[in-house]
């Protein structure tokens, strides 16, 4: 190691000291670069919003909308969801309707991607799993939403479970001059 000393022999700057400075500087720079290039992750929030948008739309004042259990019910139109967006893998929902008290599955509604549902099951079953490319899922901790509905002139009771997910990562646009 080479030390740089002044006339009195006091060390002013050593190559070692300079190397340490460069090392620290590089470390800070790399840290800053990583910090600021990290994605802003709002997928959890999006999944939450989707959950409550669906629940608010289907159940109003405690009553399930009449047409929800029809075969031809179009949830995209009724709840103002964009079907094109849900045909990809950015967003997902899965809704199950159950009768009470027999707890039989009455009906279910889902967007297309079954892959996301499997990934959500993995993530929700084990909160420790932090898979970067897996979606962020929300099922309100498995909570159910109770409702009443009319069928053949009778008031019946039921509940629904909703699973929503977002894997909407966004994309950087090409650095092409416009």
């Amino acid at each position, binding site marked *: 190691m080479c030390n740089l000393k*002044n006339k009195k022999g006091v060390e002013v700057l050593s190559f070692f000291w300079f190397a340490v400075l460069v090392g620290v500087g590089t470390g800070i*720079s790399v840290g*800053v670069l990583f910090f600021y290039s990290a994605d802003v992750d709002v997928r959890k929030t999006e999944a939450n919003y989707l959950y409550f948008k669906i629940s608010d739309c289907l159940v109003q004042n405690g009553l399930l909308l009449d047409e929800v259990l029809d075969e031809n019910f179009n949830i995209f*139109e009724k709840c*103002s969801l964009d079907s094109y967006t849900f045909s990809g893998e950015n967003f997902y929902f899965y809704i199950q309707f159950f009768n009470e008290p027999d707890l039989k599955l009455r009906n279910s509604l889902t967007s297309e991607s079954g892959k996301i549902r499997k990934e959500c099951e993995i993530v929700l079953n084990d909160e420790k799993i932090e898979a970067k490319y897996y979606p962020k899922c929300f099922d309100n901790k498995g909570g159910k939403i109770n409702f009443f509905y009319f069928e053949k002139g009778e008031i019946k009771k039921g509940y629904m479970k909703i699973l929503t997910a977002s894997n*909407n990562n*966004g994309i950087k646009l090409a*650095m092409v001059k416009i």
Partner: protein
Amino acid sequence: MIKRFLLNKKAEGETLVDSPVVFLVLNILFFSILLLFIYKQSTGAFIYEQAYAKQISILMDSAKPGMTIYVNLTEGNEIAKKNEWDIKNIVTIDDEKNKVKVRLANRGGYETSYFTNYGFDPPKIEGEYLVINVRDKNEQEKNRDRLTAIVQDYSDKKYEFNFVSREQTDVEKAILFAKENNIGNRRCSCGEECVNYAKYIFEASTNNKIDDALILLAIMIQESSCENWKCNEKGYCGLMQISGKINNYMDAKTNIDEGAKELREKYEIYKDGKTFAGACSEEYKTKYYSGWNAALRGYNGWGCNPNYPNQDFYVEEVLFIYNKLKESVNV
């Protein structure tokens, strides 16, 4: 190399970095570069592009029709100005593909999706804020269908103003009809003031030589649904949506008077006829108006407001209301 440089002897017993000054300069230089790098990173376009895109998409997903979204773009505006990028082009919304794009420079940018199917007007810049109006796409389509029906009805029956001299009681009868019944999707919310409004309309039409007082009432219903507190985004206010430059625009009599004056002025200017070349839709660009129809067109303007393309049908809508009012008084 660095080692050799540092050890390069300036004189016997001295090195280049021997003096505290050189040492200090080196350190300052080193930390300046470091701080500059951190600053550049933290104020770079990419971070803001991503943050804005996601913030806007989240706000859009949580919005409901009728709401207006405001996003503070102070930092973004500054970055865009530095990059010589027009701030009007910072945010674009692709309503078809449900994408929000944010660009703070003429290259690159960030794009993200939103899931809601509501309609969003093209973003506008108001000062430091980005403003996006939220509307119901289905409602807009229904509205469009309704207007198309009105225009068809207008074309079939060739409605024209059939002016007759009115009594004040005719106007009262018509305004009470409009208060109790929907005309198209509008109603006159005149509350306790209906009779007063009718009086002001009658007087204003007489003073300004408007041939039929019901035309003023039709405009009032179309413009404000008879709600005197309404102002639009351009600052037009009150019953007749008069320029907010007049001090007491909320005073019903003044507002109706001003509206009548303006209609008369437009009549004088355009009565001989003019083509609606500034219309939004292609089919209306060749439409020719004359007489009181042209005055109505002039009242609403001869240009296109991209946020409200349905204003192309303004004349037909007012005529539709006018004819319903006329039927209500049976004259």
